[in-house]
């Protein structure tokens, strides 16, 4: 069996595993859905009322029955009804997803726009002071947790410059692109910070490897201009590891950035999942984790395929 078919066969298997894991773990969370929903007043419910509510939310049956029912629904695109939102889980997810997607794209754009040139630049100045400076910055960037970056950005802007990040009701891109970008730029920089640092480091080392290969040396000795060698001949090959890294990072970002969403008060997927876990919204947790895992795996699959296409020499057989 070749790599591709095997990936495709195991794909649904892994998804099934994810669904079982999340289904069980959310049910192990102490405090049941009814109390989570009603708060103090749950103490006033009679046993009959409680039973009626449990039947209404479909949590009266055994776990196996519940799981079977949920899985059958999920296959047909029906992820159930969210207790908190009172509407289909898929609708709730799709409302939050555009923000998360946009934030992930913006962060990646920042990371590539900064990281790629910086990495290539450093590689061409190998071991010279300017290379060292880039490397030091990249190392620091990679070592700074994003919530530290976020807090420092807010702190420096507000205390140092009297400028404040734009928070408030979130404006979707198609309603008002500029307002929307104004709201997302700081969180995107926050997320892009460490991402850019990783891109810089990997672009630099990939570039160094490529620059030492024969065909580049040949091109150089033939008198091809240095810039052209770097950008036209070397870069395309150095891109492979950059693509892998960006893909994996992007996949993670699609799962929502819980802490950064919290700091910048953004209604993204991460915060939604956290709220759903805390409020024992079973259907929403199950649906959104499945959705996030699916995204993540699809992105990874695409990355792997790109990898194979970019470099057929690589055999991924035993991964």
């Amino acid at each position: 069996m070749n790599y591709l078919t095997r990936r495709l066969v195991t794909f649904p298997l892994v998804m099934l595993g994810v669904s079982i894991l999340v289904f069980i773990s959310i049910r192990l969370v102490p405090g049941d859905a009814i109390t989570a929903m009603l708060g103090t007043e749950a103490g006033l419910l009679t046993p009959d009322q409680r039973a009626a509510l449990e039947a209404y939310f479909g949590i009266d049956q055994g776990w196996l029955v519940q799981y079977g029912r949920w899985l059958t629904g999920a296959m047909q695109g029906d992820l159930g009804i969210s207790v908190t939102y009172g509407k289909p889980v898929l609708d709730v997810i799709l409302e939050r997803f555009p923000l998360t997607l946009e934030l992930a794209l913006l962060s990646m754009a920042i990371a590539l726009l900064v990281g790629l040139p910086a990495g290539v630049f450093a590689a061409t100045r190998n071991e010279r002071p300017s290379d060292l400076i880039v490397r030091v910055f990249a190392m620091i960037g990679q070592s700074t947790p994003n919530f530290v970056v976020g807090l420092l950005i807010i702190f420096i802007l507000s205390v140092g410059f009297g400028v404040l990040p734009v928070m408030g009701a979130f404006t979707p891109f198609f309603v008002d692109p500029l307002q929307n970008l104004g709201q997302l730029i700081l969180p995107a920089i926050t997320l892009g910070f460490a991402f850019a640092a990783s891109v810089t480091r990997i672009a630099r080392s990939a570039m160094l490897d490529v620059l030492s290969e024969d065909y580049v040396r040949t091109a150089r000795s033939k008198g091809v201009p240095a810039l052209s060698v770097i950008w036209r001949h070397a870069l395309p090959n150095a891109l492979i590891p950059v693509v892998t890294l960006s893909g994996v990072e992007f996949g993670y970002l699609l799962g929502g950035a819980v802490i950064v969403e919290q700091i910048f008060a953004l209604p993204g997927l991460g915060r939604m999942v956290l709220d759903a876990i805390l409020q024992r919204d079973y259907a929403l947790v199950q649906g959104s984790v499945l959705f996030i895992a699916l995204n993540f795996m699809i992105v990874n699959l695409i990355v792997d395929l790109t990898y194979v296409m970019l470099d057929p020499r690589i055999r991924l057989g035993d991964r």
Partner: protein
Amino acid sequence: MQFLRAILAHPSGRIGGVIVGVYLLVAILGLLGVTPHDPLMQFRIDRLHAPNGVYWMGTDLFGRDVASRLMLGISQSFIVAFASVALAATAGTVLGLAAAWFGRGWDGLIMRVMDVLLAFPAILLALLIIAVVGPGTWTSIAAIAIVYTPIFTRVVRGPALSLKTRDFVDAARTFGSSRHYILTRHLMLNLVAPLTVQVTLALAWGLLTEAGLSFLGLGTQPPASSLGLMLSDSRNLMEMAPWLLIFPGLAIMIGILGFNLLGDALRDILDPKMRRAAA
């Protein structure tokens, strides 16, 4: 000794080694209670005091000494990071070796389970685990360990698999070495290099994840101290008392930097060929 000298000869190893060494010292002092003040003592008359000769890094909302709490926080963060990485590395090594050695069905089963765990973004998986068990130091350790076990499993399984097919293992087999001997001696020796590198880097992640969880209020619980918790507490007070943000923020950053630098150096020293894949 030679190994230590090699680290010190490497520029980033030198810096990383010194940082990690200093942090370890601070963590031990914090654990032994050798701090400028009692980290839990509330000097409520002096609350929100700016840094001065008595309180080197100022005081917090309760009048507790930030420097002392930072020391305690570093030891707390280190305990969580070290314990979780130790667990993850052990579990990952056992699972990775088992997968490689037994092959076939076992391999498939173990690696698919790891795939399932890897399909969750790390922080979400940790959040789910904490929601089930309830927040606390041990929960953080377990959650971080579970999140990183698949990575170690992969790190171990790859080399183990290729080593298994190599001649010297076959040779050892034909010469009648016991199964046990082959496993421990040859495989482990050849796995030590990638594992050491991975452990160092995982410690950086461990610190990072612990801080993130505590920041969300799901890790270390008050009045104990951890770097993430201190940062989270500083948020509403940032304008009144910036030292509450600056010092823990720098402490996290430099600590993680130390482990990353050390990890880089180890990678260069132990396996120059790995340089490319890593960066």
